[in-house]
């Protein structure tokens, strides 16, 4: 088991320097959290320094050259050779293969190191296997940032609701879709106009298919389902309908009854409901959040209904979830050698 003294610096290696990675770096450099960066890699370069990499220099280099280190040092090498306590894997999601992230995570766990990831691919596809591997090695695998950005929903489910039976989960899990639907409702925009606006503001990718057809929300639902019920649900088990065929007239029709339309993920195991679909929802319902916000309702037997909302994406918001995982691992495992 990987233990360290609370007085010691916690050593972290970071894979991925996109929006989330840069958010993590900026928090590490601006807050004195007792964490040092001993390795970093992007898709084209890497660096290792057991004494700690100077983060302002690293960010400067990344900004000027597009590289975070030496092109001869690969992400594989950082994962295999850098001295770290926690591997922070925040490379882009590949929802089909889960690679190369899954390989990095396996290797880090194999080395007896903890892993924190924001990458949905490995968790949606290989959660059970990776969780077993982590348990065998006596280390932690945390993935708060994979679902609902800044909302600490996984932490809540794994740590704070012990003894509760979660009976159902309802969530707005994709900020891009929620932004589009909000704008269609509030400004009377067509689907295409709202999508173009979301793109110009950076809320939607150039190819928005993954978001607007519901795949992203469905992957998050898979992760939540496996965290709560551990039933081995896969993406193909979720019935998915996107928002790409919605009309503005449909939203007007919903408004006639003081309602609107939102893309909602639902899991109700007792009714065998596992789906993501646009639904008619009262305008005053807690899940009718605006813009790119995310929201989740958990129905539990002891605590009753619990509601969470917050920013579902963004560099610092997602970094908040990653940093929260790192700190919670330190608190749980700190104890000296």
């Amino acid at each position, binding site marked *: 088991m990987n233990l360290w003294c609370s007085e010691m610096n916690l050593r972290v290696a970071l894979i991925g320097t996109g929006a989330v990675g840069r958010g993590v770096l900026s928090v590490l450099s601006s807050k004195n959290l007792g964490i040092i960066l001993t390795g970093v890699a992007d898709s084209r370069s890497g660096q290792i320094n057991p004494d700690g990499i100077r983060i302002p220099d690293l960010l400067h280099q990344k900004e000027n050259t597009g590289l975070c280190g030496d092109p001869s040092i690969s992400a594989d090498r950082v994962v295999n050779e850098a001295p770290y306590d926690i591997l922070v894997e925040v490379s882009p999601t590949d929802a089909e293969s889960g690679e190369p992230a899954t390989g990095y995570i396996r290797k880090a766990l194999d080395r007896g190191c903890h892993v924190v990831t924001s990458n949905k691919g490995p968790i949606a596809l290989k959660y059970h296997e990776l969780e077993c591997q982590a348990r065998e090695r006596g280390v932690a695998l945390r993935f708060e940032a994979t679902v609902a950005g800044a909302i600490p929903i996984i932490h809540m489910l794994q740590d704070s609701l012990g003894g509760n039976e979660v009976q159902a989960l309802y969530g707005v899990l994709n900020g891009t879709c929620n932004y589009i639907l909000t704008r269609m409702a509030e400004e009377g925009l067509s689907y295409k106009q709202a999508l173009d606006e979301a793109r110009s503001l950076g809320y939607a990718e150039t190819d928005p298919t993954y978001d607007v057809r519901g795949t992203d929300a469905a992957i998050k639902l898979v992760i939540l389902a496996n965290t709560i019920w551990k039933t081995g649900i896969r993406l193909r088990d979720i019935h998915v*309908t996107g928002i790409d*065929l*919605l009309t503005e007239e*449909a939203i007007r029709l919903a408004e006639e*009854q003081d309602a609107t339309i939102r893309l909602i993920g639902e899991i109700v195991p007792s009714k065998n409901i596992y789906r993501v679909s646009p*639904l*008619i*929802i009262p305008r005053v*319902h807690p899940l009718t959040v605006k813009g790119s916000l995310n929201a989740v309702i958990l129905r539990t037997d002891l605590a009753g209904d619990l509601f969470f909302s917050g920013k579902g994406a963004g560099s610092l918001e997602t970094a908040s979830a990653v940093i929260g995982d790192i700190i919670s691992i330190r608190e749980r495992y700190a104890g000296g050698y």
Partner: protein
Amino acid sequence: MQVSMKLEIRDTPGHLVAALMPISDMGGNIKTVIHEHDNLTEKGSLSVEVVIEIPKERLSGLLSLLQERGINVIRFGEESMHYQQSVILIGHLVHTNLGDTIDRIDETGYAEVIRMSISMPAINERSSAKFTIKAISHEHMDKAIDILRDVSRKKDILMIEPLVF
């Protein structure tokens, strides 16, 4: 008036027809029969749920007739369609026979489309319609929605349901 009854019959051929005969004999109109073969009672008999339309003054006559013929009425009550739900359909609704889509609900006897608003932006463009459906119970509403889901799938219509919470 519309009445729903739960009848107990023996699980042998001919008994269902025998149980329904008194209803037509008394001038009642059978709107729906829900007959679940798997649903045996403790005594090994079947329960059948029927919804009928019958003039109010003939109801007590019908109950006596059922009793005379040895058919046990487990439950009966005046039925009205209390449960209401709206769904929105998007697609080529007129070209895929809107009348048939509505009929599929109305012909169940336990649910009907009571209101519809439709918006057709232009010829050849997809239209959007809101159906308000009434049903005699939650379970019947779920069944009606299932039917509409199936029809929508076959007609390539996007159906937007309400969040049931």
